[in-house]
């Protein structure tokens, strides 16, 4: 009856989810508050015939993860703020070379060393814009330990399906929380394998414009000798200085994500359609929002919530649909106002959008959310 029920920390659940998804390689560097992901990986991977390597720094952790993926592995790395900054260049490399891999960022307070053991959500914009140049990004943000497991599986699936690095944007609240989780049985969740080439090596074009815009990927050592480069490249994979090819490549990289938003966008809603007031949050703060909404509804207030799990791309269209009848929209986040930007872009009347922000290393409490709501409701802005 209780065979698969466990008390697991978010960070531990991430590793269990990754192994469920087929992770067989982890490279990283210890950093609070993500270190348990490396620790648990170092134990579970060799037990499952996988490999773990502790690298000399964060940059190497990212590079080695990509290298392993090129050789056929399902690879992951995990880090936190300062390490996420250091990994950015190679994340961009994985974007343009279309190497599937998963990067976990257990967000802590920043900038710089900040408050290493305290939660933050200040890396929201960095997850999208951290590496230079335009590039596609998928970032997922879990709220519960069970969701950490499920979204880690999703992260691997998206990375393979769309040949792109996927960021699991956790925060310390969820990473360090121990909670009840029922581990899914084998086969319960879908696992998407890498799309390998079906043509002969002589026919293979590593970056071919296929109909779905995601070219099949040959793993090194399997007879398909080709070139991978971070330089702008044509369909063959070799560098080119052609401005036409540069535009074509970038268009395809963006389109392969933007054409599949129905598949990629995941969000949770509670009374979101009917409510007069909508609360929006991601990651650990969704817990506070849900408690605040429960309390406020018990008191007779018509409130609801919208919690994006796919935080990049932002579920703009859905928010646009549900925000039409709203009097107030609150965006609660452990930063000084980052997700509020895409929210404002989606909502027609920008004046109804207000931030509930806290960037001192403390989680926003349900009481603080209720207080912000009461202040506005009592003296509504014109």
């Amino acid at each position: 009856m209780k065979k698969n029920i466990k008390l697991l920390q978010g960070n531990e659940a991430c590793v269990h989810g990754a192994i469920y998804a087929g992770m067989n390689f982890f490279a990283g560097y210890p950093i609070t508050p993500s270190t348990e992901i490396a620790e648990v990986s170092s134990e579970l991977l060799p037990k499952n015939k996988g490999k773990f390597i502790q690298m000399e720094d964060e940059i190497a952790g990212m590079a080695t993860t990509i290298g392993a993926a090129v050789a056929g592995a399902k690879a992951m790395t995990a880090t936190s703020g300062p390490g996420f900054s250091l990994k950015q260049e190679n994340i961009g490399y994985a974007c343009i070379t279309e190497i599937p891999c998963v990067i976990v960022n257990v967000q802590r307070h920043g900038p710089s060393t900040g408050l290493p053991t305290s939660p933050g959500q200040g890396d929201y914009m960095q997850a999208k814009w951290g590496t230079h140049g335009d590039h596609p990004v998928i970032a997922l943000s879990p709220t519960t330990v069970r969701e950490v497991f499920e979204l880690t599986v999703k992260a691997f699936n998206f990375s393979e399906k769309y040949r792109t690095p996927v960021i699991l944007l956790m925060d310390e609240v969820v990473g360090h929380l121990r909670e009840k989780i029922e581990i899914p049985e084998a086969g319960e969740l879908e696992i998407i394998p890498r799309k390998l080439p079906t043509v002969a090596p002589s026919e293979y074009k590593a970056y071919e414009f296929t109909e779905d815009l995601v070219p099949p990927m040959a793993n090194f050592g399997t007879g398909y000798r080709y070139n991978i480069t971070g330089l702008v490249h044509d369909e063959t994979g070799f560098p080119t200085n052609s401005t036409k090819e540069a535009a074509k490549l970038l268009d395809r990289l963006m389109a392969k994500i933007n054409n599949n938003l129905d598949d990629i966008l995941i969000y949770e809603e509670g009374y979101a359609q009917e409510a007069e007031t909508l609360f929006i949050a991601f990651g650990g703060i969704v817990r506070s929002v849900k408690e605040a909404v429960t309390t406020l509804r018990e008191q007779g207030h018509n409130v609801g919530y919208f919690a994006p799990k796919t935080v990049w791309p932002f579920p703009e269209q859905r928010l646009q649909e549900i925000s039409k009848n709203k009097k107030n929209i609150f965006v609660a986040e452990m930063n000084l106002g980052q997700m509020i930007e895409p929210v404002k872009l989606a909502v027609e009347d920008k004046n109804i959008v207000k931030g509930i922000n806290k960037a001192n290393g403390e989680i926003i409490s349900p009481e603080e959310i209720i207080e912000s709501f009461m202040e506005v409701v009592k003296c509504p802005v014109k």
Partner: protein
Amino acid sequence: MKKELRLSGSGGQGLILAGIILAEAAINQGLNAIQSQSYGPEARGGASKAEVIIGDEEIFFPKVRKPNILLALSQKAFDQYIHDLDSKSIIVVDESIQTNDKIEVDMIYKLPILKTASEKIGKSMVANIVALGVLTQLIPELEKQSVLDAILQRVPQGTESLNTTAFEEGIQLIKL
């Protein structure tokens, strides 16, 4: 039902493990439970704390706001975590701790937890398990057997009888 617990003491007293054991005992009984703890320097020798919330419904906000029970095994921890209590709270402290008489709570238990571990059982490191015996008496929703099972799942092999004794001694310390 929702019970919020704050277990505090000095780093190394095993209170985080005690918190994990309580949460595991609860979920093994089909209840919900979450556990969080203090990280960083204070977890390594200062005043460390573990928080546990047990309930029969989904638990959203993960932090303890009004502890139903505060356990303190060191003076520093007691002084640091005494806030947020109200008239319904229960305090469990080691007898060595100086408490302030003006605290308005439901009940203060001053018990020889550390001494029981070090003198009666002869291993000061089982003080956390003695404390678990005390707490089990104070949380009627938790079954004694499920807490004991959770303890035996987590303690090192070969120390099962020692820890069972410590747990039983803890129960003996508090007769309701």
